[in-house]
């Protein structure tokens, strides 16, 4: 313990850029990273320059400018390696992995994340180990290997606990819950989402809180605890409204629709699903899931043709998003419709 931990903090461009990135203010973040790179280069702070380049690359990924992002990340890696800045280099490798993942180059991406883990372990950079493991989990999940995804997310939780990075652990618990829900391990999924909610509330991380509350609805509905499901949906709506997250609001409304349908209140279910579609207009996986719920509702109403139409819309959207698991589920629903009709 030392008194000197309280040294006054002067925010640098790099730190401010990071804050803006966290808030999703990409333009401001890009500008600050660019300024940080210039000043770091002029002052000869090589590691900081590499970090600034890596930050710029991350922003470019968000803007789906992958080639430029790759150029900057590669340059960042190059500079860091030449300067002997191993940590910076390891983080650049991780960012390169994210770029490859965004470009759907799974094999290279996975190799880069593995390399990042090894480099990070050499450095004792537990946070980076966790980030790279989590990224590897995302790849496994995307490829439909849910058990591998679950193992990788667990690894990332181990690292985040070790490094004390609660915010990253929060994402890992959410991902773990999603993978477990897909494995239909409902009790476990509920535990993971609950754990995420605890951390999100402690950190006042409202954006993720909205998602976690919404995600928790599914296991609770499957377990049959409809009252708790209703409560978590309310939580999701509150948090989504606070941060104006239309996607999370759409998810919450989707679960409301399902709850109403399960209770046999088709009129209310119809109302919720229409609202969900109205707020979740972007071509996202969440919208595809709302369309799936619409299909389920129509199927329960005995409107087979309308159900199939909704499933097909959902399938088309899921396919465009490379959500193979979702496509398989929709194919099964459509087959079942035909089978029942026959």
């Amino acid at each position, binding site marked *: *313990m*030392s*008194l*000197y*931990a*309280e*040294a*006054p903090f002067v925010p640098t461009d790099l730190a401010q850029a990071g804050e803006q990135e966290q808030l999703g203010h990409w333009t401001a973040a890009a500008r600050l990273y660019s300024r940080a790179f210039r000043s770091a280069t002029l002052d000869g702070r090589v590691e900081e320059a590499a970090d600034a380049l890596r930050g710029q690359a991350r922003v470019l990924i968000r803007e789906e400018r992958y080639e430029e992002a790759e150029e900057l990340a590669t340059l960042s890696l190059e500079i860091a390696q030449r300067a002997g800045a191993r940590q910076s280099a390891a983080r650049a490798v991780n960012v390169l992995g994210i770029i490859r993942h965004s470009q759907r180059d799974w094999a290279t991406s996975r190799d880069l994340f593995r390399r990042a883990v*090894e480099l990070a*372990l*050499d*450095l*004792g950079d*537990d946070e980076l*180990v*966790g980030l790279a*493991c989590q990224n590897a989990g995302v790849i496994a999940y995307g490829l439909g290997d849910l*058990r591998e995804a*679950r*193992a990788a997310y*667990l*690894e*990332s*939780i*181990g*690292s985040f*606990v*070790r490094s*004390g990075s*609660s915010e990253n*652990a929060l994402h890992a*618990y959410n991902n*773990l819950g999603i993978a*477990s829900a897909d*494995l239909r*391990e409902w*009790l*476990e999924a509920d*535990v*993971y989402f609950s*754990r995420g909610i605890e951390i999100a509330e402690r950190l006042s991380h409202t954006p993720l809180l909205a998602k976690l509350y919404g995600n928790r609805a599914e296991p609770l509905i499957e377990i049959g605890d409809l009252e708790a499901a209703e409560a978590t949906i309310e939580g999701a709506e509150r948090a989504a409204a606070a941060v104006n997250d239309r996607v999370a609001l759409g998810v919450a409304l989707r679960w409301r629709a399902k709850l109403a349908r399960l209770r046999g209140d088709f009129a209310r279910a119809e109302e919720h699903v229409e609202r969900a579609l109205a707020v979740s207009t972007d071509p996202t996986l969440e919208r595809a899931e709302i369309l799936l719920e619409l299909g389920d509702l129509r199927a329960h109403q005995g409107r087979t043709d309308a159900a199939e139409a909704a499933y097909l819309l959902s399938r088309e959207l899921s396919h465009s998003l490379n959500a193979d698991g979702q496509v398989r589920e929709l194919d099964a629903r459509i087959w079942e419709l035909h089978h029942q009709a026959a």
Partner: protein
Amino acid sequence: MDLRDALLRIYESSGPGTAVRSLGVVLSECAGVGHTVWLAPDGAVAAVWPGGEPLPPEVAQAAARAEHPGVRPLDGDTGGETLVLPLAEDDGALVLVGAAGTFGDPAHWDPLGAAFARVAAQHRAYAQVEEERDLLRQRAEESEALHVLGLAANRTLDPDEVLTLVARFTRTLLGAHYVTVNTLAEGSIRTVAAVGLRAQAPADDPFAARVAAARKPLTLQGDGGGGAVPEPYHTAEGMRVGLGVPLALFGETFGALVIGYRRPYDLAPRDTRLALTLAGHAAVAISNARLHGALAERTHELERANEELRWTTEAKDRFFASMSHELRTPLNSVLGYQSLLLEGVVGQIEPQARSFLERAQRSTRNLLHLVNDVLDLSKIEAGKLELVNAPMRMRAIVEESLATIEPLAAARQIAVEIEPWPPLPAVHTDADRVRQILINLLSNAVKFTDHGRVTLSAAIVGDGHAAGAAADGAHGWVEVHVADTGPGIAPENQERIFHEFEQIVGATARGGTGLGLPISRKLARLLGGDLTVRSELGHGSVFTLRLPVRNDEPVR
């Protein structure tokens, strides 16, 4: 200068750093103090207002080591001076820099030093609380993470999957490069799961074996802190620091969990604690897998034994059915010829020959009964006895059965009587089988009664109309009681008599195969009812045949 304002600023500050800033602002405005500096014990500037490096290093070091407050000249040329206010040993010193004559009597500034020391102490206490809170939070996070691992590990019985999961989680939670899970089997140790290895898993890891033998955590350290560890396999893996913990459960050691670092690393008690917990998870997985394997093997054995038993039972049934049938045909033939001979079809026979022939005929009939009983039993046990159920009157069956048994009763001079008969609902059952049961009961009663009589009575139980009194759509019972005044049956024998080929002492002398009652009970149960006995030695026996009736059957 009135120090009250400066003291107020110090007390309002959140810690030494902000106190320096607040104090510096006040003193620069009111007291002409150029710089307010907080020095660490080594003379390094921890905080300064308004910034810069106002003290030469040697002056700063001397000031930080000062034991008493004092004013010292700063620099001969400028004429500036410093006021040094020592704080607690770990907190360094507060130094004010001003022009010559700024500070006057050092004692005047004592409250300032005291206040600053107090803020530093408060901050230290606060930091300690923060540190403890962070430690508790980290412990809680670790517990939660271990709980989460347990949940995931419990999802599978595949030991490879669980152990690999444990190894992977151990690697990240302990920040290690590689982890191996090693189990003991037949005196040697082998690696059953690993993550992060560069080469093949070792065939036999002596370090893991030592940990398992020691049954306690052991560490491996490279020489000089950064060199290779003295274990060839782990040296090849690049281990600088290693930790091994035993895998143990319920006092049994299964093997060892080995954790390897390829960088210099200070193992902390936390690492050992977590490793032991994780080893516990691995031990549970191994134990579960072993139990599951043993259980699966046992289940397989039982299934095999069951299959053999089933085959044997079927073979026995087939044998009895076949043999009974094959025996019956010649026996009927023998009986037929005996009857012809006794009837004198081939001429008169001598009295002695007739006597022998009658004995032969009785024995043949007994043998035929036995064969018929065995055939019935084998059919019942094979589930091949077909029932022909129809509504029937119990009184009629009782009378028919009585008529069959009357010659025997007359020969033994035993009265067989029917007690006043209550109105009974029609019974939907197989009349032939009920008759078979009653004849068996009556013939037993007559055979075992030397004096007295045999009585038949009937009753409705559950009124025959009480809903729920019987299963399978039946709503009550009809009971027929066959009571005798025979020797009675001892309590310990009352169940035995219903077992195949079991006859109580003395019963064989009265004839019979020992199959009549077992068959009767099985038939009664096949008909949805039961056959029971109440008896007391010396006071006769009462056999009760109970059959189900429905409340919609008409009463007759």
